[in-house]
């Protein structure tokens, strides 16, 4: 079983977002980075599957050297080796083309990703990669087991879930409760230092969308407090003032 897990290097979920260079660059000052939370679920399930079925896990990131600590963390959690495609991707199509270039020899039985990145929030890279490789893709997957060359999995649909079966290879976008996030142990951290991290240059792909500028949402006005003993007035305010009822 060969599993490829694609991880993003993203600001911590509590990070304050701001921009520099005339609102064209993300302000990294003081920001803590993490493995994308959904990618972390994908990695956790990959580690469990490897424990059960044997095989190897490769982690892949399309990003610059600042991703390396998160890649090392993924190695400490249980991946065997890593590839980083050295660039700063701005467009989902470009990112997907880089991942597809790595996986196009068809050696991976399973390509696991997060349901979405928490910086771009596109939810499209897995489907792009699936189509580029000519293999099926599904998202968001909340349960996954492998039996022989068949994946048995559950996907969230509106208002519920759907149980599916499909032959490998597959690309899956993962979300909880597929597995519990794993914390690296001391041994993992030690061995991660010596596991191979290969840095490759990107293949040439046109960027089909480019960043013009960033903006922040307008600041929220003050909250209007309604005394608890007059809670009922909320309903009339929502009608007449906010006009949402």
């Amino acid at each position, binding site marked *: 079983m060969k599993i490829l897990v694609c991880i993003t290097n993203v600001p911590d979920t509590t990070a304050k977002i701001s921009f520099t260079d005339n609102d064209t660059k993300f302000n990294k000052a003081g920001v803590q980075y993490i493995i994308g939370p959904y990618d972390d679920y994908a990695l956790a399930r990959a580690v469990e599957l490897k424990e059960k079925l044997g095989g190897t896990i490769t982690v892949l990131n399309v990003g610059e050297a600042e991703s390396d600590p998160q890649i090392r963390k993924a190695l400490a959690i249980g991946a065997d080796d890593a590839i980083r495609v050295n660039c700063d991707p701005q467009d989902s199509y470009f990112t997907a083309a880089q991942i597809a270039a790595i996986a196009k020899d068809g050696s991976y039985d399973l390509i696991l990703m997060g349901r979405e990145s928490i910086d771009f929030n596109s939810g499209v890279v897995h489907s792009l990669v699936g189509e580029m490789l000519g293999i099926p893709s599904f998202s968001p997957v909340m349960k996954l087991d492998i039996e022989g060359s068949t994946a048995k999995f559950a996907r969230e649909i509106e208002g519920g879930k759907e149980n599916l079966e499909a032959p490998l290879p597959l690309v899956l976008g993962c979300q909880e409760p597929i597995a519990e996030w794993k914390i690296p142990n001391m041994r993992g951290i030690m061995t991660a230092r010596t596991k191979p991290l290969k840095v490759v240059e990107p293949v040439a792909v046109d960027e089909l969308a480019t960043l013009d500028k960033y*903006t922040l949402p307008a600041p929220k006005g003050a909250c209007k407090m309604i005394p608890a003993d007059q809670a009922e007035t*909320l309903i009339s305010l929502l009608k007449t003032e906010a006009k949402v009822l």
Partner: protein
Amino acid sequence: MSILIFVELDNGSIKKTSLEAVAYGAEIAKVKGTTATVLAIGNAEASELASAGAYGASKVLHANASELATENAMAYASVLAAAVQQEGAEVVILPKSGLCDSMGARAAAKLGASIVSGVTELPDLTDGFKVKRSIYTGKAFATVAVKGAIKILGIKKNAIEAIAGSGSAEVVGFSPALGGGDFVAKVISQEKASGELSLTEADIVVSGGRGMKGPEHWQPLLDLAQSLGAATGCSKPVSDLDWRPHHEHIGQTGIKVAPNLYIACGISGAIQHLAGVNSSKVIVAINKDPEAPFFKAADYGIVGDVFDILPRLTKAVKESK
């Protein structure tokens, strides 16, 4: 060239967010001096599909092969790509949803098209084709220059106000060849709550957190939701504890909602929860702790016990009808 819009069906009716997509596509068609065509996949009456005309579509392509009866993003992507080619569409609009992101992306890879998902406003066409999209889970926006010859956009709820006019669209059958590769997955079973309001479509969402104390105490929240015609949601710990089903979990790692009104009951307002609700128009927080962070993100707040406040709000809603 033309504009193509995909609409999602729910029991044979066009979803509200899809009507917004039609209005959005029609607006671009107007500026570009071209026509807006709709693609609908699955069972629906022609009269229902023709109603897309009221939002500016001139034609509806209806793909209704029996293989397409269940949602299959890969097959739907093939149908979408075929429709783009038949119509010579240069701009493709989809409402943002799990299905649409997946099918839009697969169609983009087939067509070598740009794909930009999470668009929040009409495009700026004065200098190229620029769209504003939501990033960092609602904490910021990026304006993006879309460069592909074919541009596929996933638009968020409330990107445009859909106002019905009077037109009616011509409905024509659409039967592209369907390929085996799109049907390799076997659907074993579906577990779906029936008759539930869709969280992502709902105009009002009433949501509960750990302050609701336990699943057996949810009735006052459900009563308020019912009186308002609202969908119900919850915080992550609530679904982790199995107090409520997983598909109700809202936030950074759950569903993102953008209703006109979001009422948070006994939810502290952690930044990861707010990330799923920050596109709501009006937010109400009810919490017994005056220091709860939710009050900083809310428009209206009540400091009080949910078990006292909720029944009184329900009563007030009923009396105001």
